[in-house]
């Protein structure tokens, strides 16, 4: 009989090995699925993982990886802080939307004046928008003990309704022939978030995402905030005795994650997306939750997980294009990745024992 024994301490080896094993198992199970669909599994997996990086048109898709991974990493870094402390901000998607709305509104308010102040003002507005939206579940939790999972998630739908209203009303492009959506900010030089080095995909948001990884790493390992976060996550009671104010921690963690999600929205609306529209949000806030866990809530891990996730998106498109694989199969493949990760994760905290437990 197989039984699971809780390890006295999470296994360090398994913490590091889990993602690799999960990726390997995903390739095997995914390959099997592709084979069942009548496609060559080796070619499918090569198309997803290899072609975007080194295929015939990799010079186009490599920069696109950064564009896709940037917002995921930025949001996931913020989320990981709270997740480690046991504070569950599930509403990053809404904070992302609010960041974009506030940033776009700021830019459009100044339009068409060309001045250097536009872009910094939009950054501040974007961060504030996300931060304040995250303060709603944070303060409700601190003051009334509400569940931040529910409140932050529900606020995503409120944010989506607000986005629709803005795209159709206040921020609608007056020259858009009556169609919903704002002016194109990417065509407004003072507001445009363009590539820092043309053709690399490295826009300000991606640069900030990399910076966030470094700062996140320093905070988690060297700063008192990181210590408090880890302490609260491991033992809330010990944290309270250790002088950590739980309410303060909720506000700080929600604030940081909301602010970063807002910034991601800002850089997206000013750059790759260009405009606010009803369908502006495409799920970065939710995917970032997967990225955060795939990256073991560790900043370096998140960086790699974000890039991996972006790879599966772009590679998935190529697989559709070149092999006529249905989108559902690609999504299954992405789902397997998370499934195997969580399944293998058991080994981090538990060890398998065969036979009966010895009586102590």
């Amino acid at each position, binding site marked *: 009989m197989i039984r699971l024994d809780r390890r006295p301490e999470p296994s360090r080896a398994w913490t590091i090995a889990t*993602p*690799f094993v999960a*990726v*390997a198992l995903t*390739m095997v199970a995914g390959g099997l699925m592709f084979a069942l669909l009548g496609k060559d599994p*080796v*070619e499918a*997996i*090569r*198309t997803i*993982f*290899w072609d975007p*990086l080194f*295929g*015939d*048109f990799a010079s*186009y*898709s490599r920069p*696109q990886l950064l*564009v896709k991974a940037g917002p995921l990493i930025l949001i996931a870094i913020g989320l990981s802080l709270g997740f480690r402390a046991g504070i569950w901000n599930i509403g990053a998607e809404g904070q992302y939307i609010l960041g974009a709305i506030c940033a776009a509104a700021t830019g459009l308010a100044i339009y068409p004046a060309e001045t250097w102040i536009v872009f910094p003002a939009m950054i501040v507005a974007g961060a504030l928008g996300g931060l304040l939206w995250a303060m709603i579940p944070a303060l409700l939790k601190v003051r009334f003990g509400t569940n931040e999972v529910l409140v932050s998630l529900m606020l995503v739908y409120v944010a*989506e309704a607000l986005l*629709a*209203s803005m795209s*159709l*009303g206040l921020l*609608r492009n007056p020259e858009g*022939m*009556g*169609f*919903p959506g704002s002016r*194109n900010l990417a065509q407004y030089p003072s507001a445009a978030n363009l590539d820092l080095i043309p053709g690399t995909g490295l826009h300000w948001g991606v640069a900030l995402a990399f910076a966030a990884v470094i700062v996140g790493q320093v905070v988690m390992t060297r700063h008192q905030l990181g210590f408090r976060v880890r302490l609260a996550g491991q033992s809330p009671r010990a944290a309270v005795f250790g002088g950590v104010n739980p309410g303060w921690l909720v506000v700080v963690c929600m604030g940081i994650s909301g602010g970063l999600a807002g910034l991601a929205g800002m850089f*997206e609306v000013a750059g*790759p*997306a*260009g*405009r606010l*529209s*009803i*369908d*502006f949000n*495409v799920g970065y806030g939710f995917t970032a939750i997967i990225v955060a866990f795939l990256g073991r809530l560790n900043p370096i*891990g998140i960086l*790699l*997980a974000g*890039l*991996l996730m972006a790879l599966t998106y*772009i590679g998935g*498109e*190529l697989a*559709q*294009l*070149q092999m*006529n694989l*249905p*989108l*559902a199969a690609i999504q299954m493949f992405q789902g397997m990745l998370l499934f195997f990760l969580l399944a293998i994760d058991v080994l981090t905290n538990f060890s398998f024992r065969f036979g009966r437990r010895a009586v102590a």
Partner: protein
Amino acid sequence: MTFKTVLLGATAAMGLATGAMAQDDKTKVGFIYVGPVGDLGWTYQHDQGRLAVEEEYGDKVETVYVESVPEGPDAERVLTQMALQGADLIFTTSFGFMEATMNVAQKFPDVKFEHATGYQRADNVSTYSARFYEGRAVQGLIAGEMTESNIIGYIGSYPIPEVIRGINAAYIQAKKVNPEVEFRVVWAYTWFDPAKEAEAAKALIDAGADVILQHTDSTAPQAAAQEAGDVITFGQASDMLDYAPKPRVSSIIDNWNQYYIDRVGAVIDGTWESKDTWDGIDAGMVEIGEITDAVPAEVKEAALALKDAIASGEVHPFTGPLKKQDGSDWLAEGEVADDATLAGMNFYVEGLTGDIPQ
């Protein structure tokens, strides 16, 4: 060793051979879809068009598609990848792909683009759409005759001219045959989301609607109507025959097959030119699906007569006298709406209640 190098090592071990690109003289035709090909609505019909192209030209063409592409930067990336991989002609089948289409078309002047339901054109970008409102008028007639509660529910997708045009066209006909009729419009803000569409349908049924018209693509409203019992619906974009004879009593079918065959043919012959196409019932781009026996024979007859009259040009669904919702004059007695006004329609006609969201 980083995560990525391991990963690459693994894939490298699994086989390095680079796929041979189709570099022969086949004409490569790309399709980018906003929904899944299995939506049995809008995207499904476009994919039927793609299959018709394959059927028509066989080995002379190769078609590729990507489904459920979000409008925005993702669409631009997919279009760029298609163009890079040698597509000669790309159909972008949703209004929201307009900006992405224009941007990519500018970068690839040798690739031809066909954008559905948009208004921006270039030397290598055509636009095409169907006069769905002609079908809406026929639907409106049946709806007005069939309703007993005199409340007709309408699930709108987005408040854009195409959708508003459909609401107006249906209302005008319904009102003509049933002066008591009232329209309730719910905006779903999606083209395809079965959960939201079902919710909208249920809300309308709860509000007393016994006829549901939809401008969204899933069959969820049909299922909701079936569950509710005495409610009728119409197939949208595709026939949705699974729900016949009731709740689905008829449908508007988008038939892109001939248009796609013609345009691909033009690329093969080298005669392709940028143009704007807006065809209706007469060209076969808009079809009325079979009217089932749930509809009384005389109503069916009247509906088919209207359909024929529209096809022959004898009747235009927007013929005066018509006023706008605010009471101002729009069309004088006998006057017919011009295409420019219809293309940018952003107002309700007199009698419709509620506001267009803005």
